C-alpha cells in the first residue's frame, strides 16, 4: 500500500530540475547536470553515476525482448468500481484519469515474446498507473500470463514496480495475492522457470506474493524493495532506518534476491539464465 505515502521517500521522486524545456536534468544521485536526451539515450540510467531512473513499461518491454517479438494480450481489460469506493475522488474517476494520462488501461502490460528466440510470457508493471497498484485486473492479467506459461510450457517473467495491493478494491485486491501465488504453485510443479525482476519500487502485497517467489529474484541497482513502506516502519518502531535499508543491495545482503543486474545487462542476463533453466 505504500505508494501513496512515498512522495518523500529517498529516490522515489525522479525530480528533474528542468532548465529550458527539460533540456537539462540534474541527477538526484550524483547531482551532475545531464542533457536529458543523453539520459534518455542511456535508458534512463545516469551516464555519470549509474543511478537507475524509472523507465516506462513499453520501454522495458523493448529492452528485454527480441525486436518485434512482443504480442500484447488481455490489453482491453479495465477495472470496475465494485465497492463504489470514494475518497476525495471516486475510484471510477481515478481509473478514468489514469487511463487518460498514460494510455495504459491498467497497471500491468502482459503478452508473449522471445528472448534470444526463447519464448516467454512477460508481464511488466506500469508504475505510472495508480502507482502500479494491484487490483482485480492486475491480478487477473498476471494469473493469465502464468497460466499461458503453463499451457504453452514457456518460462514466465514478471517485472514488478508497484506500491502493492490497490486499496480501492479492498478485499478483492488482497485476494489477487492468493490467486497469483496459486498459479505460480502450478508453474513450479511443472518445472517451468519463473524469473521475478524487482524494480524501483516494489512493496506491499506485490512483494508479498509473486514478486518474491521467483526461481530467480533479480533486482535493479538501488531499487526499493520491501513489505512495509519505510515510513510505516519508522512510525511503528520510532527509530531511524539503517543506511540503504530496503534497497536492492540490502536485500542481496540479507539473502532475499539472487542477483542485482544493471538495466543495460538485463536482457543478456535473462538469456543466459533461461538457456540453462529452460530446455524447450
Amino acid at each position, binding site marked *: *500500500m505504500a505508494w*501513496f*505515502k512515498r512522495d518523500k521517500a529517498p529516490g522515489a521522486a525522479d525530480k528533474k530540475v528542468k532548465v529550458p524545456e527539460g533540456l537539462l536534468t540534474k541527477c538526484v544521485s550524483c547531482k551532475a547536470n545531464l542533457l536529458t536526451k543523453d539520459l534518455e539515450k542511456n535508458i534512463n540510467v545516469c551516464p555519470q553515476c549509474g543511478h537507475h531512473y524509472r523507465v516506462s513499461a513499453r520501454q522495458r518491454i523493448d529492452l528485454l525482448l527480441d525486436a518485434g517479438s512482443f504480442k500484447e494480450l488481455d490489453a482491453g*481489460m*479495465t*477495472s*470496475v468500481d*465494485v*465497492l463504489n*469506493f470514494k*475518497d*476525495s475522488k471516486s475510484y471510477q474517476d481515478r481509473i478514468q484519469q489514469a487511463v487518460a494520462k498514460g494510455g495504459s488501461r491498467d497497471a500491468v502490460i502482459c503478452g508473449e515474446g522471445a528472448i534470444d528466440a526463447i519464448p516467454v510470457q512477460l508481464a511488466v508493471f506500469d508504475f505510472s498507473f495508480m502507482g502500479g497498484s494491484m487490483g*482485480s*485486473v492486475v*491480478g*487477473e492479467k498476471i*494469473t493469465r500470463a502464468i497460466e499461458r506459461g503453463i499451457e504453452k510450457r514457456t518460462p514466465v517473467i514478471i517485472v514488478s514496480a508497484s506500491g502493492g*495491493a*490497490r*486499496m480501492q*478494491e*479492498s*478485499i*478483492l*485486491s*488482497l*485476494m*489477487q*495475492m*492468493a*490467486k497469483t*501465488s*496459486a*498459479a*505460480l*504453485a*502450478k508453474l513450479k*510443479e511443472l518445472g517451468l522457470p519463473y524469473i521475478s525482476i524487482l524494480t524501483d519500487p516494489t512493496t*506491499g*502485497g506485490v*512483494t*508479498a*506474493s509473486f*514478486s*518474491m*517467489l521467483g526461481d530467480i529474484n533479480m533486482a535493479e541497482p538501488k531499487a526499493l524493495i*520491501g*513489505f*512495509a513502506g519505510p515510513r*510505516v*516502519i519508522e512510525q*511503528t*518502531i520510532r527509530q531511524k*532506518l*539503517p543506511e540503504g*535499508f*530496503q534497497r536492492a543491495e540490502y536485500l542481496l545482503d*540479507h*539473502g*532475499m534476491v539472487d542477483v542485482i543486474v544493471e538495466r543495460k545487462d538485463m536482457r543478456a542476463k535473462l538469456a543466459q539464465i533461461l538457456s540453462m533453466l529452460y530446455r524447450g
Partner: protein
Amino acid sequence: MASQYQLEFEKPVFELEQKIQELADIAADNVELKTEVAKLEKKVDKMREVIFANLSRWQMVQVARHIDRPFTLDYIKHIFTDFVELHGDRLFGDDHAIVGGMAKLDGEPVMIIGHQKGRDTKEKVYRNFGMPNPEGYRKALRLMEMAERFRMPIITFVDTPGAYPGIGAEERGQAEAIARNLREMASLTVPIVVVITGEGGSGGALAIAVGDRVLMLEYSIYAVISPEGCAAILWSDGTKGAQAAEALKLTAPDLKELDVIDEIVKEPLGGAHRDHETMAKNLHQALARHLKELKALSVEQLVEGRYQKFRKMSRFAG
C-alpha cells in the same frame, strides 16, 4: 463471561443493566418489583438485539477488536481436546504472535494454527499485539507441511492487525514468508478450513488464510488495509477510520456478498466477547460440518477446487 469493557454504543445497555441489578437487589421478596425486573431484563435483550442488528461498519471493527473477544487459545480450549502446542520455525525462532499445534476435533487429529493476541499489557507485548514476524509464518508453514505428511486437516484462526512492520521483519523476509505461504497453501493436499475470528488484517492475515472454506464470525472484519491506515493515506488523517471502514466494505456480510467467504458464523447476542462458550459451540458445529464435507473429496477435487475458488475472485470489464 460478561465483559466489563464497554464499547461506546453498548453504554445504554450497560446503564440499564446496572439499574436492573440495583432494582433486583432491593426487590428481595417483593413480587411486584420482581416482575418489573423480569420485564426490564427482556427489554435489555431487545435493546442489545436492536443495537447489534444495526451496527455500523466502524462499530463492527470495534467489536472485532474487543479485548475480551475469544482468541485462538480460547477456541482451542473450548473446541478441541489433546492440544499439543508446537513451537518454532527451525530457522530463527518462535513467534508468539502465532500459535500452532495438533489437537483432536471430535476425536480426530487436526493441525491448528492461529494468530494470538494478548489481554493484559504484559501479554499484549509478549504476543506482539498479534502481529507476526516472518518466523511466525514459517512456523505456520512448517506445521501445515507436517499436517500434510500425517494427513491431518488444517484449521486456521485469523485475528491480526497485520504482519509486523519492523526492521528485523524486513531483514528476515516478511514478504517472502507471506508469499511462500500463499503459494504452498494453494497446493497442500489436506483440507484447510479458515476462520476469520477477529481482525483479518491484510497480507498478515491472508498468509494463513488460503483454504477450501473461509468462514467469518458475524462481527469479524477482513480487508486489504486497516481503516486507520486507509484513512491516513486517503485523507491524511488516521482518525477518519469510520469513514474508511465504510469505504473498505470489510464486514462479513460485505465479503459474503463478494463471494470471498463461504459462511458467516453466528455470534451470541451482543458479540462473541459476551459468551465464549456459545461462540465456541457455534463455531465447533460449523467446523465439523465443513470438515466432513471436505473429507469426502478426493485430493484432486480438493486442490483444484481450492485453486478455482481463489481463481474466480476478481471483478473487471473487457
